[in-house]
């Protein structure tokens, strides 16, 4: 293995330790790491337990003030080549801690990054939460959810069907990570997304000096309404 290791970040919103959500995420991560190694790329794995960040979540939500745990999580996500995001389903929706975590991140932090979406629930009736709710959150963040979403009700935990879905999702993730898609977006078309100064976890500090606003800032004028 001569090339640099891929960085995979697992984000779990499981409420207990261990949780079935974390177990689903770990099974997926293990498959992705194994597949990647088979294909000649090592993988560095980082796990973010949202449960451990909960004390920092209220202040992050109310004042965009990131505590030390959030800051470390964001640093890991900046570097991530791929993500596995897993949440329990409560009341027919992803856990509030899970959506809360992603709502405080910069809008451009996850652009182009491949993500396996995974959820667990007490009943199969929640099965569509992954594809109907969680997927739209990641669409907003312009992340790249892999085609296969994972969902596990209690009866799925020991089924071979879930294992093959995990394999499929892990394979999709591995191929997308390997392709370097997110990095290529960052290099080639990053400017076409909207950014704030210091966004993308503090890494976005480029400034377009040719913009209308920059011209206005330097004593120029805006195009007048009615001007061609």
């Amino acid at each position, binding site marked *: 293995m001569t090339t640099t290791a891929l960085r995979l970040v697992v984000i779990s919103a499981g409420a207990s330790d261990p949780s079935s959500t974390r177990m689903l995420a770990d099974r997926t991560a293990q498959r992705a790491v194994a597949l990647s190694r088979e294909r000649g790329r090592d993988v560095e794995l980082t796990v973010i337990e949202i449960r451990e960040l909960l004390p920092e979540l209220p*202040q992050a939500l109310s*004042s965009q003030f990131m505590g*030390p745990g959030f800051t470390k999580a964001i640093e890991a996500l900046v570097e991530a080549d791929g993500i596995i995001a897993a949440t329990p389903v409560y009341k027919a929706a992803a856990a509030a801690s899970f959506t809360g975590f992603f709502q405080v991140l910069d809008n451009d932090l996850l652009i182009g990054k491949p993500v396996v979406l995974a959820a667990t629930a007490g009943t199969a009736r929640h099965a569509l939460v992954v594809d109907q709710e969680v997927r739209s959150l990641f669409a907003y963040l312009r992340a790249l959810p892999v085609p296969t979403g994972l969902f596990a009700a209690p009866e799925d935990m020991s089924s071979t069907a879930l294992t093959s879905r995990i394999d499929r999702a892990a394979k999709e993730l591995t191929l997308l990570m390997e392709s370097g898609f997110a990095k290529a977006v960052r290099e080639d078309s990053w400017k076409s997304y909207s950014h704030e100064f*210091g966004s993308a976890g503090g890494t976005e500090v480029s400034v377009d*000096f040719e913009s209308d606003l920059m011209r206005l800032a330097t004593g120029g004028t805006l195009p*007048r309404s009615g001007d061609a």
Partner: protein
Amino acid sequence: MQFGIMSVSDITRDPVNDYTPSEAERIDNLTRIALKAEEVGLDVFAIGEHHNPPFFSSSPTTFLAHIAAQTRHLTVTTSTTLITTNDPVRIAEEYAMLQHLSKGRMDLMLGRGNTAPVYPWFGQDIRQGLPLALENYNLLHRLWREDVVDWEGNFRGPLQGFTSTPRPLDDVPPFVWHGSIRTPEIAEQAAFYGNGFFANHIFWPKEHTQRMVQFYRQRFEHYGHGSQNQAIVGLGGQTFIGKTSQEARDRFAPYFREAPVYGHGPSLEDFSSQTPLAVGSVQEVIDKTLSFREYVGDYQRQLFLIDHAGLPVEMVLEQLEYLGGEVVPVLRKETEARREPGVPDAPTHASLVKAKYGDAEPRQPRPNANRGDNVTGASPYQDSQGAEAVYPTL
């Protein structure tokens, strides 16, 4: 280096004794605080601008003129003046007036204001806040430098032959600071004009401040106003000082917990370790404040917020005793000792007069007699350059 205090003029219930001051009391108290700042030897007093309760400071120039009239050394300024919802013509007029009355002991800091409902009260739209701020300053800059302005823009009516009166004291415009947390266009405008840049430096970790100040310094140099370390930088900050660190934390904690801006959020410990908030003994506050220059470089002005969140006036006056008596004297000495060679002081009226005129007498504009064209303004002053109006003898 200048040291001072800045107030947002909030009227907040004291969470310890459940007492909410009246507007009248708070206005009188803030006057006492400003006068005390002069008494204990601070350099600067700043007040914000707000147009909704629980704040009182809708008319900062009136308040600051009152303070300037009762002080001899203090520089009065704003934190901030709303460059969005104020007509730049009114800013030019009001602050030039303040400049005359204070004999130049004033400057001002421009900010956008982030309370959306305020904008429509003044006929504006927060979605246009940034272009509005930039365009308004471009106009303000000219109004203080050109006797007669023809101007047209997107956000107010055009001006033809307009003269903003009074002309600035000694025909030297007030020094302007541009305040911003994360908007590079504002830092760019400050750098372009060679004005000061002020970072709020209260709520967020230092990385935000560091990024913006660094950007401003680079652009200041880019526009040829001097080297990066000669750019004019100001920082906010927040402090509460006690006999011991424990005493400071114990006394400040109830106010911190209930503070409108960050109350019920982060703990005092977390907020202290992750933001510039300095709560502790004299030495702790000195040490933390001295650490600011390590990430922004040598800077010219440090303003502390000490009177918000319902802190009673007696406690604020006591804080001023600590600041003026024990903290700032050490900070002056230490910052002076550490300052790189070639770093300028914050501009004052005297230094700006000197820069413009050297040893020559400053210009004193004297209006021409009213000839009936004083509102169309070809040549309003006796020494005006430009077209002389010619009147046929009838």
